[in-house]
């Protein structure tokens, strides 16, 4: 047979395809073929030093969280839009939102060859909840029956009564009360499974974790502290987050400004946070290689009820006045170059059930005349104690909060004509200590980033009576009851409606004043393709390819 031009081309193409698939391990999914990206490239991304050993239940910050999310796979994971999808779970079934039966997929293994079984989950969760292990994320298990006994101070109980292993592939969970959004939480890192070896020497395991996720440590000691963490694809992994590249190396930076210099000189492939000093020009510097992507986080100012001017009916009117005196549109435009979205309620727009038009949302709109009127009404009820002028506290060690706090202060000062000032705390821990000990002398700024994509995550932990992050010490039985009802609803949709009804109450009371929603501003180098940010503002590392 004579070779025609086209058949030569075809055979070249065929050889190329063969060569690609030969070295491309078992990435047989069709999606990566079309893009033409290099699936063997090692991607260098920015990271921060994990603050704790890499054990899922003792990691409570983003630096360690980003690594865990790649090394482990939970029962479910979240796609780019925050929709939950089954990962290790075959099914999660319940009839009453209180008793769950969880079945695992067959044949899943950890990278040391151990199978992922029901005990891998149950043992890891029990370990996380038990007080004697002092795990930072223990409260994530609070819904499970028996958590109170296991987590009480000084308790020696090591298991939660609500967890029961049925067989290798099945376990049951009994919650203390019905919670319809509970399965949504199972993609959060605290709920990841652990292999048996983890419990033998947790400190050593935290240095070189063995997981079941799309990536694994390149070798023992791949975590070079304060320098980099090298991850390579886990060939055994099958699931929605299959690696499209030859590995992810987290390069650890002490500050974003330095990382940005590395990005523009192509020494770094992906930067997830543009430093404040470059917000104005990063779109010019990077052009097509920049991204702005809203994520599930917001910024608020909490005003404690134990401050004299801010309690009762007069306090409520004053809170509304403050909120209406802030020109959110102007601040997000001028200070953040539209890198934030003005808040319409207390959660975030990327979530299911988000509703920007709730009754009471007008309290978050700029309206200086109404603000002045409300303030005067409050004065009639109870004159403002000027010996204690309001301050807005912020921590000056991380993140650039000073600029916007000053802008908010000026807004309020100009529109309400009252004494108010910013109050810098030297360190984050100083601010947190004051908040925990109820020693705040003014309002405190507070950023919240969702752990799992649910409205409740923005409401329960912050505004429920006695909740861990309730800096304002807000307490409203009606609100608490609505939350409980919402959790017990038959479906997440129905639950969301009740969550929004609960939101109407706090939109009226304003225990905290919502300011804006977070938007991830990031960029990538000339060497990579396919950079997309997820619902939580973290790039979808597994989907990035080389060029």
């Amino acid at each position, binding site marked *: 047979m004579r070779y025609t031009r086209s058949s030569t081309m075809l055979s070249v193409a065929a050889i190329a395809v063969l060569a690609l698939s030969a070295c491309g391990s078992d990435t047989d999914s069709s999606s990566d073929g079309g893009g033409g990206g290099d699936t063997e490239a090692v991607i260098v991304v920015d990271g921060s030093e*994990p*603050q*704790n*050993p890499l054990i899922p239940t003792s990691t*409570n*910050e983003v630096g360690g969280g980003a690594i865990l999310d790649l090394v482990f796979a939970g029962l479910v994971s979240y796609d780019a839009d925050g929709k939950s999808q089954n990962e290790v779970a075959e099914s999660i079934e319940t009839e009453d939102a209180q008793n769950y039966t969880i079945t695992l997929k067959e044949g899943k293994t950890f990278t040391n060859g151990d199978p992922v079984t029901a005990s891998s989950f149950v043992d890891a969760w029990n370990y996380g909840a038990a*007080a*004697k*292990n*002092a*795990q*930072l994320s*223990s*409260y994530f298990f609070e819904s499970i029956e028996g958590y109170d006994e296991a*987590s*009480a*101070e*000084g*308790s020696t109980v090591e298991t939660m009564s609500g967890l029961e292993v049925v067989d290798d592939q099945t376990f049951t969970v009994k919650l203390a009360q019905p919670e319809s959004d509970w399965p949504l939480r199972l993609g959060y890192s605290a709920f990841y499974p652990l292999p048996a070896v983890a419990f033998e020497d947790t*400190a050593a395991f*935290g240095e070189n974790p063995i997981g079941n996720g799309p990536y694994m440590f390149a070798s023992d000691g791949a975590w*070079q*502290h*304060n*320098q*980099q963490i090298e991850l390579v694809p886990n060939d055994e992994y099958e699931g929605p987050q299959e690696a499209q590249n030859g590995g992810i190396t987290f390069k*650890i*930076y*002490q*500050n974003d*400004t*330095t*990382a940005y*210099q*590395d990005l*523009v*000189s192509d*020494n770094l492939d992906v930067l997830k946070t543009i430093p404040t000093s470059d917000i104005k020009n990063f779109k010019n510097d990077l052009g097509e290689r920049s991204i702005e992507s809203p994520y599930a986080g917001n910024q608020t100012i909490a005003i404690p009820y134990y401050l004299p001017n801010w309690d009762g009916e007069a306090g409520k009117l004053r809170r509304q006045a403050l909120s209406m005196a802030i020109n959110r549109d102007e601040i997000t435009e001028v200070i953040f170059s539209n890198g934030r979205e003005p808040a319409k309620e207390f959660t975030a727009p990327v979530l299911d059930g988000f509703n920007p038009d709730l009754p009471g949302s007008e309290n978050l709109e700029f309206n200086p005349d109404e603000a002045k009127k409300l303030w005067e009404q409050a004065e009639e009820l109870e004159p403002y104690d000027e010996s204690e002028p309001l301050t807005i506290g912020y921590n000056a*060690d991380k993140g650039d909060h000073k600029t916007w706090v000053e802008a908010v202060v000026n807004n309020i000062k100009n529109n309400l004509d009252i004494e108010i000032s910013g109050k810098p705390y*030297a*360190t*984050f*821990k*100083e*601010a*947190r*200590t*004051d908040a*925990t*000990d109820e020693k705040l002398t003014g309002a405190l700024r*507070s*950023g*919240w*980033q969702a752990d799992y994509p649910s409205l409740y995550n923005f409401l329960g*932990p912050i505004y429920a009576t006695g909740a*861990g*992050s309730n800096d304002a010490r807000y307490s409203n039985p009606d609100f608490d009851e609505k939350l409980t009802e919402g959790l017990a609803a038959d479906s997440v949709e129905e639950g969301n409606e009740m969550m929004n009804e609960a939101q109407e109450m706090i939109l009226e009371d304003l225990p905290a004043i919502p300011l804006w929603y977070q938007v991830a501003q990031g960029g990538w180098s000339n060497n990579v393709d396919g950079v997309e940010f997820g619902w939580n503002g973290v790039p979808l590392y597994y989907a990035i390819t080389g060029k």
Partner: protein
Amino acid sequence: MTWYIVRRFLQMIPVFLGATLLVYFLVFSLPGDATAAICGDRGCTPAVVAGLREQYNLDEPFFVQYLLYLKGVLTFDLGTNFSGRPIATIIAEVFPTTAKLALMALVLEAVFGIVFGLVAGLRKGKLFDSSVLVLSLVVIAVPIFVLGFLMQFLIGVKLQWTNPTVSGDATFTELLLPAVVLGLVSFAYVLRLTRTSIIENVNADYVRTATAKGLSRKRVVVVHVLRNSLIPVVTFLGADLGALMGGAIVTEGIFNVNGVGNTLYRAVLNGDGPMVVSIVTFLILIFVLANLLVDLLYAWLDPRIRYA
């Protein structure tokens, strides 16, 4: 001489005790609860906070905490930092990098400072002298982080002669740019010190004698003028080594060097007492040793100085 050195080493013991006590107390009195830094935005449950306090001896009064730390040091166990890592390991990781950086900066500033200062001093009032004086004034006046960012941008990003940041290996070539930035300000001081000292000494009697003896100009300048002029410069360099080791926070931050300065900065923010004290103690020991070395150098530079 030997007795002198032994005595100096014995003097380090009270310095060590005093310094650790003072630094430990300062970190202890920083406002804010150390567990709040560990727990982060979300806070921990009271049971977890209690567990953490017990783990790091935070529930003990100040003196008990300090004595527990001291006991650890004397048994060669520096304990762990708030991330649960052994402090000795961390120090072993970061000290070599910073030592390399500081020594490179020291050598650069000493060599260039002394040579430029010597030439400028000998040609007082000439074009070279006036221009290096202006240059050194500019270097001293401009804040170090401006110089750092500027040089990083020009050399690392625009010209791409070197990477803008230092990798984990911290190789000689990578550290060159940060070392230049770190040594720049001291270079200007060394230059000015040497110049002034040289100008004073060229007119000294012994120099006139040496010239009258018929020694070559080169020998007069190097052996008589320069050697005698180096005493204030060596004093400065000795003290500067300590400053370079601990004071590189800004430079290390700009070039992302995983060194002592960065580690110390993070530890202070977190209120991580044992970590801060261990690093500061090491810095103090280096400082004391460098000063001892300077004192011994005096005797070599000026035979009139004797130790007994």
